């Protein structure tokens, strides 16, 4: 990049660094078949992931779905986004963003999953409806959950508008629709 010409056409137009027309570099062109092939693979994997989600594989459902999604993502990134042929630094950036993300998730979960290890009383924060039950005794009542009553009012207003059964098959099991317990004790 040595010794090229420098333009001295002052003043410059605002927001403009006037480009010069030069010989275009050669572009890396893939055959169309590759692109269509990748789409075919992506569609196939989509069908697979939907199909496997209908099976009950227990704990393996999620890892399997993530594995398929990961494969799809790799295909898109390496072929559609040309990472396979691109500067390796761009690949490094892409990978390191995933790396930093996993650091974020793993170290955060080291906390959220690890609470209560040395003392069960310091365990994880409790869902609202369980707070009362898990209190060591009658004294340490949790405070009123913030805005809980307004929450109830919302539900009541909604129920008035939509009589029971309005949402077809999604009706809650009996008693399952527990309002925040603290408000009613």
């Amino acid at each position, binding site marked *: 990049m040595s010794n090229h010409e420098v333009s001295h056409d002052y003043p410059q137009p605002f927001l403009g660094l006037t480009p010069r027309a030069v010989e275009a570099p050669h572009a890396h062109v893939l055959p169309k078949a590759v692109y269509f092939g990748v789409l075919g693979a992506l569609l196939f994997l989509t069908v697979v992931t939907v199909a496997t989600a209908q099976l009950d594989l227990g704990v393996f459902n999620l890892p399997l779905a993530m594995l398929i999604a990961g494969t799809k993502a790799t295909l898109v990134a390496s072929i559609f986004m040309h990472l396979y042929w691109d500067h390796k630094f761009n690949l490094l950036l892409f990978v390191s963003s995933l790396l930093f993300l996993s650091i974020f998730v793993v170290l955060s979960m080291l906390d959220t999953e690890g609470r209560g290890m040395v003392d069960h009383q310091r365990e994880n924060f409790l869902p609202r409806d369980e707070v009362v039950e898990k209190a060591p005794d009658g004294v340490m009542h*949790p*405070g009123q959950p913030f805005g809980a009553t307004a929450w109830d009012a919302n539900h009541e207003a909604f129920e008035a508008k939509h009589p029971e059964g309005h949402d077809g098959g999604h009706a809650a099991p009996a008693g399952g629709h527990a309002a925040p317990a603290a*408000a009613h004790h």
Partner: protein
Amino acid sequence: MDAEQLKQLQSMHLPLDGVWLPKATSTIAHVVDDPFWIIYWACVIAFVLMMAPMFWFAWKYRRKSAEQKALSQIDHSQAMEIAWSVLPLVFFFWVFVLGFRGFLEMFVAPAGATEVQVQGQKWQWSMAYDHKGDRVSVGGVGAEFVFPKNKKFKLVLKSTDVLHSFYVPNFRIKTDVIPGRYTTLWFEATEAGEYPLLCTEYCGTDHSNMLGKIKIVDTEAEWHAWLDKMNTTVVDVPTGKNLFETKGCTACHSVDGSTGLAGPTFKGLWGRNEQTNKGPITVDADYITESILQPQAKLVNGYQPVMPTYQGQLKQDQINAIIEYIKTLK
């Protein structure tokens, strides 16, 4: 916060011990103090080792004429680089282990420690002791919490609103107090005296007034006597007034008719007719009791559902005493 309370807070006194750490009065304090002094002296030495050459070079190689160039261009030394990378690392590893072991000691309560419940709320602390099959609850702005020395206590802490942090400098104990979750601490005091309890997690207007007094007494007998005293409730106006002032009611209720706080004033409350979200009511003993134990059961129009329940914190006698007090506020 009225002037009297503020004065009371300012009468609080933190026992010191030289220019650095305050006087240590718990058995756990050494896990802070020992590493503190190790690091302190290591830092003093390290600082001298860095600053002495810096000033020496600055003086010795000062530029005497404008044209003067450097005496040499020596610009690397593998041995030195490795030395000053590895040596601190070794020291750090040692300090890390010390700190971690101390940390575990601080947060793992010994077996047999007596459990005390602690609650932080804007802007006061309260504690609940188990005493003779009863539950003795003490709290309020600047409240005094009594413990005997040479006895292990485990504190189980929670908050009702925002984050607070429970901090007794003389005991070297601190933990954040979190709504919806419990945290724990333990201590065993070694010396009778009064030690301030501070809030160290910013929690709003009166963050800096969210103080308490940990009073350590010499014998368990004294402690029990204090608990007995706290556990008896005479249903009369002075007791009610005292409860009103120490149970956090003042944060939201005035007694002089002024409005602007979150809850209604107590002045002229007794016998008043109000509209609630469940219909009209008259303020009587039943309604006040219900409002203290189940604050959201009947909410007077125009007020937000922000009052915490006092279920389990106030006994019926105490509620009755408060009712007696409210009756006097005409």
